[in-house]
């Protein structure tokens, strides 16, 4: 089948707006009487709140409302099992930066002054900043109902690892560490709320998940959902930092209700780092057993995550870390012990590649180490362990399409891997890393049987096509891709499609933009809705032209007889003909629920990991290492991504490049540094996301495995590539200078230190003529 719209590189609908500064973000909103909301934050990492006195703050001129934790005492959380947060601390603060009170005022100056005048009496409690320490701490626990400060632990055993290791010819284990990260999205969080005289609350928020916000507002504020409207204006990136209801959104709403005036609460960059929800500090211990030929017989993994002070997505994160050990290679036996630990630090949550990234770094590194010990190359050891399409893994994940072999083949070819690996001069190296990710979760995190995505398509007398979707466009291009699907089905120009999205009064339910679910799920819903419209038009036209409906083709804005293309009507005529009939306005409705087979097993924790389809990715990185300074420069990255089918190749390439960029940052420079619960680099100057000059040339390669259940065969593209990039770089560093960095980020000092250790122990035989010191970078 030849597509008209699908598969064509398509700039985003409305993409002109953000690039010309015309896009309206939440913080740009101006409403008559708008007040500034600001939040007072705890200076202590753990303390009982003895008293909060707001009387002086209330007297500051310009202050309209002051609230404290008591005003918002209902607990909430993104997970049904993690309802442990309040929008403002009620009787205890658990991390530096946790909100304690909030004010709404006529000006930011008045608001800040009022915050200064709120008097809080704290009684400090012992605080813990490291997961291992927190697990062994005596009471009082950070949450009284979480003994030993363990949020949740899982002990999974699939197959029989004892037998697996016994069958292995070679077993190697290693420990890895990955630090806390922040998403560092360009747009800091912002929320505007307004409460009208009819008792209806409207909230605009820079969120990835309007529906979860809607539910939570209802729960915490005690308003029925039908009296709340949630809108999502333009969002300047989320990466997981905006995919759950957050305190400032609830605070804005409450302040609006109390003051009777609209209120805006926008985070400073420093506050974004304390709001956090990024990747946790993570200890990983990993053991892999293989046969002589590289075939994996067993994997054992232990993970400890320092999740900070509240649950957030933590239980999902700790599960993903274990569950996604599977579904990329064929592993018959897996044992996993995961601990999600509470500490007195800002809560961690989901971040691009949620849960899977750090263990993937460990796994792909250890795989290379084992390959070397066995005299295998990095490609062969992976190829020995390929899955087959349409299998079920040992932990009950259903894998359908499987493009990993093709991804590896393509990057190896494009990078000239085998001409370079072990052959480049000392100081230069190349490495491979692979990864995979879900195309949406098979089971909704909110434990609901409702469809995960719903789309309504409406066609009326103007011939315009209204696409109503609850999805959250956050810069990833999901509005455009749904419009493309509808345009494809109806054979019309993309411009005919108007997307109405992210407004709970107008658009149907969608769970939101997280876990890479939107193209797959909302795409399927859009496809179904568009097909209903097409069927209705086909029916009308078929009767009018006396051509069987299944012979009608929708193409180039016409509906015509495939066997006699001159015989047909324009799309507008077809619509007009249909509107004459008793049904009137054309409405198509689509809904998507993952099939039962894609909802995983029945064991405890089985709900996380299953997906209707998995994306696959392989990256090759070429690096140079300055052996005198220890600096690593990534020269080039080739990344192949199996996205099923690239509905919009331009967007897929953008997502691959974005994933490489974030992988690069995590590999080399990014880390949130904390001391006693305080962040030392809560700003973009000292939190080192790579800039343009730090980026390698990126070659994105699209692999299409045509998934049987994805819309036109599509799977996810937004996250899956990231995880492979980091081990590709680490493996390349090893190839360049023979040192294995197992602690991220790979800083120059760590490289130098490892090089020194290596020369001291003069360990392994050199694979390379090390005497040929590369000309230093400046020569």
């Amino acid at each position, binding site marked *: 089948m030849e597509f008209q719209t699908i598969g064509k590189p398509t700039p985003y609908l409305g993409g002109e707006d953000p690039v010309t500064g015309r896009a309206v973000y939440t913080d740009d909103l101006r409403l008559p009487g708008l007040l500034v909301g600001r939040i007072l934050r705890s200076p202590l990492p753990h303390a009982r709140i003895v008293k909060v006195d707001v009387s002086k703050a209330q007297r500051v001129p310009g202050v309209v409302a002051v609230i404290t934790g008591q005003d918002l005492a209902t607990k909430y959380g993104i997970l049904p099992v993690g309802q442990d947060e309040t929008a403002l601390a009620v009787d205890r603060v658990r991390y530096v930066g946790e909100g304690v009170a909030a004010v709404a005022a006529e000006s930011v100056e008045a608001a800040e002054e009022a915050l200064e005048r709120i008097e809080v009496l704290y009684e400090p409690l012992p605080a813990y900043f490291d997961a291992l320490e927190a697990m062994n701490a005596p009471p009082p626990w950070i949450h009284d109902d979480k003994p030993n400060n363990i949020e949740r632990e899982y002990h999974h055993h699939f197959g029989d690892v004892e037998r697996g290791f016994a069958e292995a010819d070679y077993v190697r284990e290693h420990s890895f560490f990955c630090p806390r990260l922040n998403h560092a999205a360009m747009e800091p969080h912002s929320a505007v709320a307004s409460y009208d005289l009819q008792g209806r609350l409207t909230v605009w928020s820079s969120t990835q998940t309007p529906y979860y916000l809607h539910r939570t507002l209802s729960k915490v504020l005690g308003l029925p959902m039908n009296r709340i409207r949630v809108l999502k204006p333009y969002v300047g990136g989320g990466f997981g930092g905006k995919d759950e209801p957050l305190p400032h959104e609830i605070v804005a709403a409450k302040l609006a209700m109390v003051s009777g005036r609209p209120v805006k609460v926008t985070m400073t960059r420093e506050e974004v780092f304390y709001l956090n929800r990024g990747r946790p500090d993570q200890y990983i211990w990993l053991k892999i057993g293989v046969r002589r030929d590289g075939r994996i017989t067993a994997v054992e993994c232990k993970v400890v995550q320092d999740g900070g002070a509240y649950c957030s997505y933590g239980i999902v994160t700790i599960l993903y870390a274990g569950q996604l050990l599977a579904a990329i290679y064929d592993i018959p036996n897996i044992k996993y012990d995961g601990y999600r630990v509470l500490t007195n630090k800002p809560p961690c949550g989901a971040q691009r590649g949620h849960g899977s990234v750090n263990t993937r770094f460990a796994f792909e590194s250890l795989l290379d180490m084992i390959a070397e010990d066995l005299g295998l190359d990095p490609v062969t050891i992976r190829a020995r362990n390929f899955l087959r399409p349409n299998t079920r893994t040992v932990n009950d994940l259903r894998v359908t399409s499987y493009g990993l072999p093709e991804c590896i083949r393509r990057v190896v070819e494009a990078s000239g891997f085998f001409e370079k690996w072990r052959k480049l001069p000392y100081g230069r190296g190349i490495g491979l890393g692979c990864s995979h990710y879900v195309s949406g979760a098979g089971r909704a995190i909110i434990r609901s049987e409702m469809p995960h995505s719903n789309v309504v398509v409406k066609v009326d007398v103007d011939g315009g096509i209204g696409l109503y979707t609850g999805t959250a466009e956050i810069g990833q291009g999901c509005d455009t891709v749904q419009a493309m699907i509808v345009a494809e089905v109806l054979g019309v120009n993309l411009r005919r499609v108007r997307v109405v999205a992210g407004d709970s009064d107008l658009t149907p339910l969608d769970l939101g933009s997280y876990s890479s679910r939107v193209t797959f799920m909302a795409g399927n819903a859009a496809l179904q809705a568009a097909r209903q419209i097409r069927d209705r038009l086909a029916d009308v036209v078929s009767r009018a032209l006396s051509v069987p409906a299944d012979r009608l083709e929708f193409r180039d804005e016409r509906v015509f007889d495939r066997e006699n293309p001159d015989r047909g009507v324009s799309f507008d005529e077809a619509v007009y003909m249909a509107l004459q009939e008793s049904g009137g306005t054309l409405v198509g409705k689509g809904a998507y629920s993952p099939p039962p087979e894609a909802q995983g097993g029945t064991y405890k924790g089985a709900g996380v990991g299953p997906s209707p389809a998995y994306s696959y990715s392989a990256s090759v990185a070429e690096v140079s290492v300055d052996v005198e300074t220890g600096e690593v420069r990534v020269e080039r990255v080739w990344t192949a991504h199996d996205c099923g089918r690239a509905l919009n190749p331009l967007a897929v390439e953008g997502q691959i490049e974005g994933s490489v960029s974030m992988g690069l940052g995590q590999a080399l420079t990014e880390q949130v*540094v904390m001391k006693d619960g305080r962040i030392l680099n809560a700003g973009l100057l000292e939190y080192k996301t790579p800039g343009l000059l730090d980026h390698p040339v990126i070659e994105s390669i699209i692999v299409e495995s045509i998934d049987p259940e994805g819309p036109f065969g599509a799977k996810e593209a937004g996250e899956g590539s990231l995880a492979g990039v980091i081990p590709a770089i680490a493996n390349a560093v090893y190839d360049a200078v023979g040192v294995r960095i197992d602690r991220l980020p790979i800083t120059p000092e760590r490289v130098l230190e490892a090089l020194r250790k290596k020369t001291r122990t003069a360990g392994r035989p050199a694979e390379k003529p090390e005497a040929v010191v590369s000309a230093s970078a400046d020569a």
Partner: protein
Amino acid sequence: MGVWYMPPFELVQPRDLDGALKHLADWATDTKILAGGTDLLPSMRQRLFEPRYLLAVGRLPELRGIAWEDDWVRIGAAETLNAVAEHPQLCQAFPALTEAAASVAAYNIRNMGTLGGNVCLDTRCHWYNQSYFWRKGIGFCLKKDGSVCHVAPGGRQCWAAYSGDTAAALVALEAQLRLVAPTGERLVPVREFFLNDGQRRFVLRPDEILTEVRIPQWMAGYQGRYFKYRIRQAVDYPLVGVAVLVRTSGPRVLDVRVGLTAVNPMPRYFDVPSEWLEDPPEAWVERVVEAVVRLARPLKTSLLVSPAYRQHLVRVFTRRGLRSLLALPTAA
């Protein structure tokens, strides 16, 4: 947290230097001089400065222009870093300076940031360049609002690192600064301008404006290079900066100087004694390297790299600079 508005101030925009000096005559201690603002304004948001007046000097004609005059090359203090970095004759004459200017921050910041502001840059320390909320929470330090140094707790001195890039070149080039006050002006050699005290920083008085940086024309006969360590190439302050200048005549090495920044509260320099130069370079290069390394006293003022690493880089960069300018084979 992270107060997100500027503290209140009044912007004074005189038309010429006289106007600026008139303002300073009355209000010097309540005033901060504003050039490009790329250093001062972010610091004000962090409440490191809350001046009553900002005196804008960026457009004063007396602070503009790049000219060869008598024995000097005169660069107006308000010339932007990009104007310096991209000036063809300056690039030819003083490559270490233009390389240093080109390495500051990022292109758009260099469009705003001036040479004068770069020279007068505040010293940096990760205990200091933080928001008010943060500093208050941890306990103010002696450089601002407090009485202890978190880096060297016992002492009474601030060790914040002077982190201007161009100063490394300017001390090696023996540049001079013209400082103009309502009561008169003075010329101060850059080498005497700075103080090894992160708090007092330099001899500039509150009523003085730096109007020009001038470099002796005879320094144009030197080859020069600037080496900088920063975490991101796209934008970052130096954690180490080394400028190396060499003058040769055929095979003879006539003069060698090294300027050093970002590792002490002030920029430092080392002029190689002329007697050393009578021997072939291999005989003294390492001695120079060690002499420069001894000048560097980085302390734990930077968050992400250790003092030992910065010290190590001083060694690597100095050696690289010398060996490349002296056309010696790269060290193994």
